[in-house]
């Protein structure tokens, strides 16, 4: 029997004449109502699984597949967003209330195991315990036998208390009594989790921001779902963010920049805060950055091919060695002859658009080209196209310019942009909820289920033949099988010692 089981049985029965508030509180704090609430939560959660929710990818197709009647019924019942519906929130609130009231109601009884342990009991009560046995001891007084039993109990890790009442000595041993409070600790952590999550949801919001190297912004986009419509609102940040670099670590550098060929995405940004100054932050997958209650996460990419770093091969028109140089995205370099080269743009699949301007046909790396601004010493700035494929000199875009024939020898693939997701949680409530409440809950559950309150009583009385009689009884609030092993060991020790004395104990 668990603490709660005993607690429930010991509760006073509320008479129908009790005030209505008391009766209502009694109902709300009952475990029965708690279980019913759990079942309602299960049903609501299941409905949210079976009816696709409006913020889940694929909702549009699902919504179209429904009949008008289904849309009307599900929509008016709030089933397309059941987890944010008022009745779901109310059920959660009611469950929290039930947990709080049930815990308050039952705590005094559980505390009595700690404050007033039951150190003795009548013979009948002891024989009513799940484990019990009577051992007759010859040739040893009750007092001597009780002392022996006490040492056996201690050797088995039990904390002992001995009481002597009218010649009947009771040796009481127990272990793990603190476990009686385990259920309350579990509920405290569960409430911490609920409360933290609730605070996080009500005080924070979700948004995203597109990061293209070189871009600076102090605005992020908050998204709101309303059935098949997604609305975005701009939210101003108290600081600005500048994307300084984006990187995509590929498994196979020859492959695509698809998610299937990706090990990680990394976005480097500079946070410029008028209040706290400047800082550099790196956001990678599974490694978010937390700054003033704003948590930045990798969310998605704009998978149009780009290059983080290009390697150029320059063949001087005047003859001489081929020059190889590397330039980072938005970066530049100066050649030995003073020519300034700036890497301004990258097109993965070069073509001419309808307006005759350079464009990209697709996002794939079919015909990559780096677009450069080249300024020769004392000359004018020129736009140069460095293609990966070898072009003949008579092709205009491939013709030598600024004294060099330009070729894109290699490049490090990266997408056009990263999209970071931002969670604003001003009180860090979700971290408190899940780290403190969550890990606390795990620990408390381990404490509840893996430790049991074990109690053993040995009532020793002098018998008429000059020996003594031991009524051994015990119980545990859980893991009865393991307690059975301990009880068996204790009873064997008491009987086994008797064999050593050769004075005829019987079990």
């Amino acid at each position: 029997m668990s603490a709660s089981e005993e607690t429930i049985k010991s509760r006073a029965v509320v008479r129908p004449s009790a005030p209505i508030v008391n009766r209502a509180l009694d109902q709300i704090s009952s475990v029965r109502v708690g279980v019913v609430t759990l079942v309602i939560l299960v049903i609501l959660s299941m409905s949210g699984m079976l009816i696709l929710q409006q913020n889940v990818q694929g909702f549009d197709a699902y919504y179209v597949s429904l009949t008008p009647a289904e849309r009307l019924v599900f929509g008016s019942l709030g089933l397309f967003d059941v987890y944010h519906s008022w009745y779901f929130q109310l059920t959660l609130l009611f469950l929290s209330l039930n947990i709080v009231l049930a815990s308050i109601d039952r705590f005094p009884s559980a505390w009595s195991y700690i404050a007033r342990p039951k150190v003795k009991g009548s013979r009948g009560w002891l024989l009513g315990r799940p484990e019990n046995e009577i051992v007759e001891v010859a040739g040893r007084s009750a007092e001597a036998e009780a002392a022996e039993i006490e040492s056996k109990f201690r050797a088995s890790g039990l904390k002992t208390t001995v009481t002597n009442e009218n010649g009947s000595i009771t040796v009481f041993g127990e272990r793990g009594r603190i476990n009686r409070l385990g259920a309350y600790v579990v509920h405290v952590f569960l409430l911490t989790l609920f409360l933290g999550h609730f605070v996080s949801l009500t005080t924070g919001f979700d948004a995203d921001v597109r990061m293209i190297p070189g871009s600076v912004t102090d605005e992020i986009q908050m998204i709101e779902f309303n059935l098949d419509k997604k609305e975005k609102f701009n939210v101003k940040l108290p600081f600005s963010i500048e994307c300084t670099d984006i990187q995509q670590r590929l498994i196979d550098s020859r492959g695509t920049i698809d998610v299937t060929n990706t090990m990680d995405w990394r976005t480097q940004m500079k946070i410029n805060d008028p209040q706290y100054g400047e800082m550099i932050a790196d956001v990678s997958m599974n490694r978010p950055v937390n700054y003033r209650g704003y948590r930045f996460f990798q969310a998605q990419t704009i998978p149009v091919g780009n290059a983080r770093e290009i390697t150029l091969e320059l063949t001087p028109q005047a003859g001489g060695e081929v020059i190889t140089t590397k330039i980072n995205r938005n970066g530049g370099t100066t050649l030995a002859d003073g020519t300034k080269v700036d890497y301004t743009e990258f097109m993965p699949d070069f073509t001419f658009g309808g307006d005759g301007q350079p464009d990209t046909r697709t996002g794939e790396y079919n015909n990559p080209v780096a677009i450069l601004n080249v300024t020769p010493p004392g000359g004018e700035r020129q736009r140069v196209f460095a293609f990966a494929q070898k072009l003949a000199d008579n092709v205009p875009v491939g013709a030598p310019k600024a004294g060099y024939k330009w070729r894109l020898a290699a490049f490090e693939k990266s997408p056009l942009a990263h999209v970071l997701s931002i969670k604003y949680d001003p009180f860090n409530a979700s971290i408190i909820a899940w780290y403190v409440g969550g890990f606390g809950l795990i620990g408390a559950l381990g404490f509840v289920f893996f430790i049991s309150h074990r109690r053993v009583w040995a009532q020793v009385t002098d018998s008429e033949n000059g020996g003594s009689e031991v009524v051994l009884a015990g119980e545990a609030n859980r893991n009865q099988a393991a307690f059975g092993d301990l009880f068996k060991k204790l009873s064997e020790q008491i009987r086994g010692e008797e064999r050593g004395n050769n004075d005829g104990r019987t079990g």
Partner: protein
Amino acid sequence: MEELDRLEERVTWQSYLPTIMVIVGSFAMLGLRMQMGDAFINDGALMMIALACYILAALFQLTNLYAPSSMAEKIGFFGAALGVFFNLSSWLVRWVSAYDHEIAIMRDSGNMENPWVFRYIPFANLYDLSLAFAFGAGVATLLFAQRRKFRILTAFTLPLAALILTLARFIGNEFIDLPPVLDSYWRPIHVGVASLSYGVALVCFGVAVIYLLKDRVKVEAMAIWSSIFGIAVIATVSKFSVFTEFVYRAGLFVPNEIGKKPFSAPFRLELPFAGPALAVSGVLLAGVIVAFLIYIYQHNEKARGIGHVLLKFALIAQIVSIGIVVYGIKAETNTQARLQAQLAADTGQYVTAGMAMAENQDLSVNELRQMTAKQQEQMGRSYIQANGDKLYTSLNTNPVEVASLITALVGTFFVMMFAFRTDKIVDRLPSLDSLDSLMYKTACLAFAGLAMLLITGAIWANESWGRPWGFDSKETGALVAWLTYAAFIHTRIARGWKGRSSAYFAIIGFLLVIFTYLGVSYLLKGLHSYA
């Protein structure tokens, strides 16, 4: 049986020796794999040996149940240990194989990075999770079966572990390209906890079934539930076509790059005779339900007799149907021509396929609404034009369908077996009290495990997706299962629901765990669709 309860041997550290040896042995296998390279036995073969061991161990324990023999009991127990050994070895060997597989690709492309070893832990897809789930079930069984009175548990839990491995076989052991979000230290923790807690929930389910049997729940009532499950499976496979059109259509694959999982095609191929055979099985199972309902509610012995005869016929029909499905898939050689003929006879299938393709393109509501049936048909026709000659059938196209059909068959088989010498087997089962106690213990463990699963998942989600909880279908599935076990524990406390009531709760809890494990991956959309 009280005789079994008297076998109260005390649990000492030696009791855990078989489990310790199994784990140490599996790591020795891992060492061998690392020494010998890919010339060593592969994970798929080890998994098949584990499957065989589980089935054999269960058969020996069942033999021991009907014809008590300490030899059969020992073989059953050590067979189970061997099964767990091969199961864990398969999982560990797969870890090394996954590493070798990706490193080979990286080196070939000149990438000299050395990713951390946990990137390759086999917790990447449903195949990996199934291997781990079966191991969780096996090792939990082994730990609880250390008490001799609970060794009979092996006969009930290992067939389920074997079914999970069968499902894994049908899913296929191709490696997936790991999405970056999964490359986190939370993955081994979260998925490891999932597999172990699912395994304990399976054991809890096994104990609940044994409890119901011991508590003399009528085998006929069990037959009604297993038949309802069988009918539900037959009705839903092949997109509900068995009872509506009397045909069974198997899924089709289009090849992918070498070594990668093929793509599922939006078309299915009709298998000759499979539909009618499955429909007959369904009708026979419906007959079983009707006959046993009459027996239960009107105490009609004649209906009971008819029900048992129908149950036998239903078992035969299910075996034949599965045989036809498997043979039809394996023997298919003329896919393109047969599919063309099938589509010529029913052009509506182009529209259905086109609709599925459009849904997968993530179009907006307006775009989808504007799409006409003609356009959808055209999409279907274009697909066939481009891929028609590459399509092929495989058992791996419909892993859940085939595994569900086999599970329904196993359910019918077990119920039929329970009906045979029921009194004798009931006598040999442990006492109701000890079964109830074990059921409570395993439910508590499953509850604690699922709590860990939810919390580690939430923390990981907080680090990856920016929110700890998003009511994703897999998250919600696990939450629902957890709430069910919470209700189990609290009804026991508040209402004194023990024994049979608890057993029903344990069964519902496990069904919800299975729904989370499989249903979410195959039926619902969400962020966990890879597993």
